[in-house]
């Protein structure tokens, strides 16, 4: 006989809904209960009165009057005929006997529970899976209750957490389930429930503190507590719990000390700067190591003005298991030369390891990109230069006539008839479109005792917000491991991806084949939609339709002047691990990252600047291979001492090839082949280069009682790029981790405390062929070859660079991990950096490769993790990442004291020895310098009435710095039952950027603030006003496009509109060599200007007038995820599944308020970015909305 136990729980927990569940779901029987059952069933008097009621109705009546509960299989009773019963004060058996007669059903009463079943069917209990309720309390060893402990039914997603009193309840749990009790800082426990109904657990603090394991250099998995340096990490769970559309989003804001930005559209290069830009010459990009494969990630941001994306943009986020950011040299020392800018280690997912069988995981996401904030151009005045009375459609400037007031002019599409000038304020909006991104991924995985595999196939397709721009990516990722024997295993990773675009946006603001520039320079009176059919009728393929001669039609550029690429990339690894003895193991691996990239740029006939078109093809091939052999020794020397060490050797070989063919002009329109190039305009170039580095390196990690760890590493490289005598360079590193919480007895509220310190050096080589002078080949002069020596002065005695980094940090966990703090202070000193420094051309060189003196970066990285609220079903986590960095040029080089990074009109971004990297300088306004003059400090106006610049280079003034003061990222996560809400907020404080969009907008009369100059009171004499408040006027223009905007009447030409304007100040008149100052303040001798020149000369020559604060707050991402309850999903064999709603970049606040995203204030600069310069390529702010589905079978 089976024994059933009745669990006498809280009655309320037996909800009515349970009744209608399948019979197999629950059954409560038991001898104990049966005793009392008899009395209740016999003592309870019931009244039943029904007419043609279903059986269910009758059962309900009984339940309503009593404590009886009915259990039945719906199917069993659905088909039964209705019955009519009329009974008073009857006991339940009487009623059921009557009701069930002729139904073929029988009943069984146990206590208050009534089971209805078909006659003669076996006792239902036999087939039932037993399920019950479990409650309990979780405490720590001291007996204090523990709130917030996660309890998971192993192998399922069922779980709960303890409430504030440490109590938990599982209402419905199968016999012999395994409960997993998890709490940070505590030893996790697994308990078989058996048939227990109450399980109280005492959790012991984990003996060695945190069991957090992170991936460190060379893919070594290390306990985080053992590390003497800061490692930023984004774990698999974080990546998967809030599904990401791209890898960039997965990292942004989540690691302190790291700055990430993306310039262009989907697929464009991602710019990552770790601990500040310490290199003055290269792109400062960290080394990417994907599954042990070093991957070149150089910026790829300038092909005919378009950005072709870098390695990280090729990755499929669905394949990523975890990301570790090795920030300092300590962490990166083992990667050698290229790790100076930090290392980003990406581990792709291997098998889910969930048992036998093949697992399938499906991810699908859709996202729409919605432009929502457009740069605010003015729509009140049309094209022209000459002021408010003349329409000059051929010009690029918008200083022309007033719109929407009935002024009639012949326009480009008005067939020679003068028609009213009308504004099109939706011009910009009309041009852009909604973009969308579709991404799908399917992964299969499986494992057994001999190995595992995971195969993932992904596909992403994006269409951009600019017409005819797109991006696509296909990926196949295979991770496998097989144990050849107990001690010998082979691991193979293959990551293949193919990405490409039919057209990437040209973001070079200096190029008239930039869609943005053409769009932005079209007049306010242009209906952009009239240009949509962009060929002149009857001249398709030959002549574009356009409204202005010195422009391109933006639709024409977008559709015909395309910049496309396709890239095939394979990252592969074969690794062999041999566990020779318990202490000794040997690892050998071969990694290879190779990609071919084909680029194509088309310029159609009639392109402004290239009237007969053009065609460029570029074929690139890059390859890097590494061969590594690593001998590992680990031993527990005594009870207290452990050692883990290795020695290794590596051979790195890099190969780059480039073929570039260009036809600067074409013969046959719309035929894009090099052979269609006009004779003499075809240029070919082919280059290849190679480099190799041999390395020997090793590490020893010593651990004392799990409370003190010492890591020592050393590496020697031999690089082919350095002169023979400097080829070999050694660099050491050491780090120490002390766990105070292990060493001393800490107050109870301190859960974990660690002090870490590290010092390390990284040596770096340079690019190939930097030692010797070579001649360059110029374009042919007819049949004569032209060769020349370029201005780069090579250096045959280059030294390897040395970056020395020191860091000290503390990690704290409080209140059982409810609060965590990681803080790091670092100093990076970069010496002997190889830099092509600009030298005056008259020296015979334009730049010279030198070893620079010393660049020092200092900064703070603070990470705060908090869990402010844990309730039964609700949890609120809040993480903060704080980054602060400043880099200084401490010493430059013998004889040199200044580095110029970029020049702009009237200023530069340059740094003097001792100054900060990113300083922005201006040549100021020329003012009266004679202190005895009543006009001292008045602007000195030229004879033509315009402001002028003080040309003395000694008078330059610093107007800003392009670097932020700090970055603070906040990530709140709210979890309520199956829902979780995640947000990522970035606050970038400080820094300045120079905006070409603003500058050209002012220059061209396109900004909204170009209607008039400084506001003034028309009723008060302007001269008096200026003298009373000179600071408000000097440096600005006074006047306006019309009288209502502040324009003055033209005394000399009364026929003109009232748009006379001026630059206030004084000018000099010399009589007999003696100069006197004449007021130019709007009085009688004023030199009047048209508004365009008055505005232009007050803004364009002075960068400070177009310099803006880079402070912004951005809501990068919000996602709401719902994890489907497992019990629903089980029906359709799905194990885990979730749906997420994602919104990215839906809110941004900028201190400057000029509708330009400071994050995009970078000027593409072949292979690098000039930071602090927005280069006339402002895109509309674009928010994305979408959803992601995730299913695991």
């Amino acid at each position, binding site marked *: 006989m089976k024994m059933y136990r009745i669990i006498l729980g809280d009655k309320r927990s037996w909800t009515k809904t349970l009744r209608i569940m399948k019979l197999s779901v629950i059954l409560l029987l038991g001898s104990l209960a049966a005793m009392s059952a008899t009395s209740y069933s016999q003592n309870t008097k019931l009244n039943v009165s029904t007419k043609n009621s279903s059986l269910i109705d009758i059962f309900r009546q009984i339940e309503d009057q009593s404590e009886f509960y009915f259990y039945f299989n719906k199917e069993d009773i659905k088909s039964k005929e209705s019955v009519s019963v009329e009974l008073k004060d009857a006991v339940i058996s009487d009623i059921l006997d009557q009701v069930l007669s002729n139904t073929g059903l029988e009943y069984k009463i146990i206590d208050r529970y009534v089971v209805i079943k078909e006659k003669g069917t076996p006792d239902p209990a036999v087939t039932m899976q037993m399920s019950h309720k479990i409650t309990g309390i979780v405490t720590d060893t001291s007996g204090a209750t523990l709130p917030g402990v996660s309890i998971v039914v192993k192998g399922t997603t069922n779980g709960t957490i303890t409430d504030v009193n440490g109590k938990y309840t599982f209402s419905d749990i199968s016999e012999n389930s395994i409960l997993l009790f998890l709490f940070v800082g505590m030893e996790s426990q697994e308990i078989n429930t058996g048939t227990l109904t109450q399980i109280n657990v005492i959790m012991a603090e984990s003996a060695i503190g945190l069991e957090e394991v992170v991936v460190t250099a060379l893919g070594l998995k290390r306990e985080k507590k053992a590390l003497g340096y800061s490692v930023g990490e984004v774990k698999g769970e974080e990546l998967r719990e809030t599904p990401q559309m791209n890898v960039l989003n997965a990292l942004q804001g989540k690691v302190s000390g790291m700055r990430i930005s993306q310039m262009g559209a989907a697929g464009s290069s991602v710019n990552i700067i770790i601990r500040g830009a310490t290199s003055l010459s290269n792109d400062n990009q960290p080394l990417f190591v994907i599954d042990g494969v070093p991957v070149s990630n150089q910026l790829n941001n300038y092909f005919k003005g378009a950005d072709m994306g870098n390695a990280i943009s090729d990755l499929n986020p669905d394949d990523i298991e975890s990301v570790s950011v090795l920030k300092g040299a300590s962490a990166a020392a083992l990667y050698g030369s290229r790790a100076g800018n930090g290392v980003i280690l990406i581990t792709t997912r291997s098998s889910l390891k969930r048992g036998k069988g093949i697992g399938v995981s499906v991810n699908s996401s859709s996202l729409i990109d919605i432009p929502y904030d457009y740069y605010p151009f003015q729509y009140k005045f049309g094209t022209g*230069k000459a*002021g408010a009375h*003349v*329409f000059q459609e*051929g010009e690029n400037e918008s200083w022309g006539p007033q719109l929407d007031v009935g002024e009639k002019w012949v326009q480009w599409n008005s067939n020679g008839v003068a028609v009213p000038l009308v504004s099109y304020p939706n011009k910009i909006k009309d041009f852009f479109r909604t973009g969308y991104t579709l991404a799908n991924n399917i992964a299969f995985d499986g494992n057994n005792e001999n190995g595992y595999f995971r195969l993932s196939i992904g596909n992403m397709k994006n269409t951009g917000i600019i017409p005819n721009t797109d991006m696509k990516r296909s990926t196949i990722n295979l991770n496998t491991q097989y144990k050849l024997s107990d001690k010998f295993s082979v691991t193979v990773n293959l990551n293949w991806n193919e990405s490409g675009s039919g057209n990437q946006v040209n973001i070079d603001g200096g190029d008239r084949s930039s869609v943005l520039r053409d769009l932005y320079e079209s007049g306010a009176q242009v209906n952009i939609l009239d240009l949509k059919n962009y060929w002149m009728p009857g001249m398709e393929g030959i002549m574009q339709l356009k409204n202005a*001669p010195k422009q391109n039609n933006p639709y024409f550029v977008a559709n015909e002047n395309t910049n496309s690429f396709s890239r095939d990339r394979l990252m592969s690894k074969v690794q*062999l691990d041999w566990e020779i003895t318990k202490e000794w193991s*040997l690892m*050998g691996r071969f990694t290879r990252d190779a990609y071919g990239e084909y680029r194509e740029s088309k310029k159609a006939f009639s392109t402004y600047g290239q*009237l007969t078109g053009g065609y460029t093809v570029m074929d690139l091939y890059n390859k890097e291979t590494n061969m590594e*052999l690593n001998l590992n020794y680990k031993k527990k020397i005594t009870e207290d001492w452990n050692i883990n060490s290795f020695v290794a050797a590596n*051979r790195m070989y890099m190969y780059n090839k480039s073929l570039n063919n260009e036809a600067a002009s074409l013969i046959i329109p719309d035929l894009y082949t090099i052979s269609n190039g006009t004779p*003499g305009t075809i240029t070919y170039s082919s*280059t*290849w280069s190679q480099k*190799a580095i*041999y390395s020997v390196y090793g590490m020893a990690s010593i651990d004392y009682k799990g409370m003190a760890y010492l890591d020592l590493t050393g590496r020697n490289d031999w690089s*082919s790029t350095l002169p*023979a005598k400097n080829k070999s360079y050694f660099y050491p590193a050491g780090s120490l981790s002390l766990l105070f919480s292990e060493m001393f007895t800490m107050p109870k509220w301190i859960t974990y405390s660690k002090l870490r310190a590290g010092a390390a050096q990284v040596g770096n080589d340079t690019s190939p*062929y930097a030692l010797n002078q*070579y*001649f*360059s*080949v110029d374009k042919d*002069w*007819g*049949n004569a*070859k*032209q*060769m020349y*020596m370029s*201005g780069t*002065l090579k250096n045959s005695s280059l030294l390897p660079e040395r970056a020395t980094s020191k860091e000290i940090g503390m990690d704290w966990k409080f209140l059982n991990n409810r609060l965590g703090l990681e803080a790091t202070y670092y100093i990076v000193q970069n010496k002997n950096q190889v830099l092509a420094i600009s*030298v*005056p*051309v*008259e*020296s*015979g*060189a*334009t730049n010279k490769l030198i070893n620079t003196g010393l660049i020092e970066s200092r900064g703070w990285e603070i990470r705060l993790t908090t869990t402010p609220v844990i309730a039964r079903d609700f949890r609120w986590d809040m993480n903060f990442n704080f980054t602060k960095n400043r880099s200084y040029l401490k010493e430059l080089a013998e004889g*040199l*004291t200044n580095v*110029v990074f970029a020049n702009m009109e009237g200023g*530069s971004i340059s740094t003097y020895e001792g100054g900060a990297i990113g300083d922005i300088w201006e040549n100021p306004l*020329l003012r*009266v310098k004679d202190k005895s003059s009543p006009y001292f400090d008045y602007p*000195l106006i030229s*004879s*033509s009435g315009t402001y*002028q610049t*003080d*040309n003395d*280079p000694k008078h330059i003034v610093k107007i800003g710095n392009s670097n932020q003061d700090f970055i603070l990222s906040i990530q709140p996560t709210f979890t309520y039952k199956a829902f979780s809400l995640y947000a990522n907020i970035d606050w970038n404080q400080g820094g300045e950027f120079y905006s070409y969009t603003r500058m050209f907008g002012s220059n061209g009369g396109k900004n909204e603030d170009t209607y008039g100059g400084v506001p003034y009171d028309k009723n008060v004499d302007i001269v008096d006003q200026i003298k009373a408040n000179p600071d408000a006027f000097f440096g600005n223009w006074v006047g306006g496009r019309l009288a209502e905007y502040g324009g003055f009447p033209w005394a000399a*030409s009364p026929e*003109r509109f009232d748009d006379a304007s001026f630059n206030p100040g004084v000018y000099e008149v*010399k009589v007999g060599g003696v*100069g006197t100052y004449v007021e130019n303040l709007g009085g009688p001798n004023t030199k009047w200007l*048209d508004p365009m*020149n008055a505005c232009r000369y007050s803004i364009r020559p002075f960068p400070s007038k177009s310099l803006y604060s880079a402070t912004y707050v951005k809501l990068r991402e919000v996602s709401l995820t719902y994890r489907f309850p497992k019990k629903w999903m089980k029906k359709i064999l799905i194990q885990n599944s979730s749906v997420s709603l994602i919104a990215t970049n839906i809110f941004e606040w900028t201190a400057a308020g000029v509708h330009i995203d400071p994050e995009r204030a970078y000027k593409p600069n072949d292979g690098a970015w000039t930071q602090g310069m927005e280069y006339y390529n402002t895109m509309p702010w674009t928010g994305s909305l979408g959803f992601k589905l995730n299913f695991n079978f």
Partner: protein
Amino acid sequence: MKAIKIKTIVVLTLLFQMTSCMDLNELNISPNSPVDVSSNYILTHVLSGTAKLYNNLGEPYSSVSGVMQYYQMGTNEAASSVNQYLWPRGSWAEYYENLRNVKIINEKSKTENNKFFEAISLVLRAFIYGTITDLFGDAPYSESLLASEGIYFPKYDEQKYIYKGILEDLKKSSQILADPGISAYKIDANADILYKGNPDKWLKFANSLRLRYCMRVFNKKDEMSKLGIDIVSEFNNASAYAFTSNDDEAFVSYLGIAAENSAPGGPLNEANPNFRTKPCRTIVDTLISRNDPRLQRWVMPVQRKWDYQVTSIVDKSVKTIFGEIYTVKYIPTTNQVIDTSLWVGLPQNMNVVDLLNYNKGDDIAAYHPERSPYISFLHPRYRENIGTYIRMDLMMYSEVEFLLAEAAQKAIFSVTGAEDHYKKGIIASMKRWGIVDGTGGFNFNAYYDNPKVSYNSASNKLERIIDQKWVSLWLEVESWFDWRRTGYPVLITGPVTQYGPAMPLRFMYPLPNPDAKYLVNYDEAVNRLETTSYVPAGQSKDHTYSKMWLLQGTNKP
């Protein structure tokens, strides 16, 4: 056992791979670029580059041609610099780029013992440094091009030493080239895009440049003689074997194939056909008043001509002396202040708004701002990639004759026959533009008899010579240097100029390197400049209106 075998094989293979080292030094030899190349290839680069640079000083958008009133901008574009003398900082980057390569030719000529290349490198060095100092004044010279020896911030040499060096280089090169043994040294005719490897032509060029530079420093001859340079004897020496015909001229032809070898105004270089550069009224009226046929080589008739005779708008066919036919609308007018000529130039230094409406009379129609039909366009050849008379002149034969005329007029040189040289200069210039006496209705004597042309009818002979030279130097920077030296032609500024009613005197130095050590040298040079009353008070002396040594104390212009 099998497993162990596999392990052994794998590990050994790996080890073998690791040890199969490549020679790291070998790897770092570039497979793409040569370490050494023939000077012939460098020569072509330097010649084409120098010719282009020098030519660009006169066009397009040349602020110098604006100053010399050859042309003006017809719209706002570039008007501030061309019309109103708001000159940005100059640039000498490409000059020194070329000098770097000239230096390589020079060094190689010695190691390879090729005297011809040595002579050419000296001529080019003189020519390029000459242009630099003519434009800027003091400039890095003796310490320049020594970056490889660690001198990044060369001092700015005083201008007189640069001119001394130039004249010495030219003298030395003429000595080398005059040596009969020169024919033993070869230069690839194909590479020498100036003279096809003909040493005799190079000799004439070197001597002609000596004439140019002797005259350049004429006002400073006493100071030069203190440096050991006797201008008079130098001149006399060079005049014996300078250009003697148009065949000797130093110029590089455009190829018209690609942008970099085509004329600056053609479609390969100008997506927006250049109608905005307008001939200036000064040169147009000068040519009209002398009935100078060169006008019709350079300038088109207006499309709409105001006319006192016609009573209604009529289309008339206008045929130039070269047989070109234009259709011109004659528009009746009685306006007495309007320009009714067939060739209308744009007055100098106009306000932008005014110039857009220039000579529009009472016509209220709106015209393309760059294409006013009431102002002449430049001849269509200035909008072509290549043209018969469009080329990059380094020095023309006419200049030599005018230099000789001036020398004769000055009467301290051994040269005599000023009028003869003057005439030869005019004839050479006409020939340069395809105008030959007796053809196309051109009669030289008729032209010459014009009292505005003939030498004898001039009261100021020097002015007469330089006036004609100015015409012959149409769109050439040399005319500006002559004007600075002589004050001729007398040019008057218009209403809107940036710094007052005067013409600029020099290029501002390129944006100085911000390095303090550089600025020491820069400041020294700037301090040696002499400010004029047109330099704003408190402004740096590195200004377009400051006087370089060459002009200091000369009372010129």
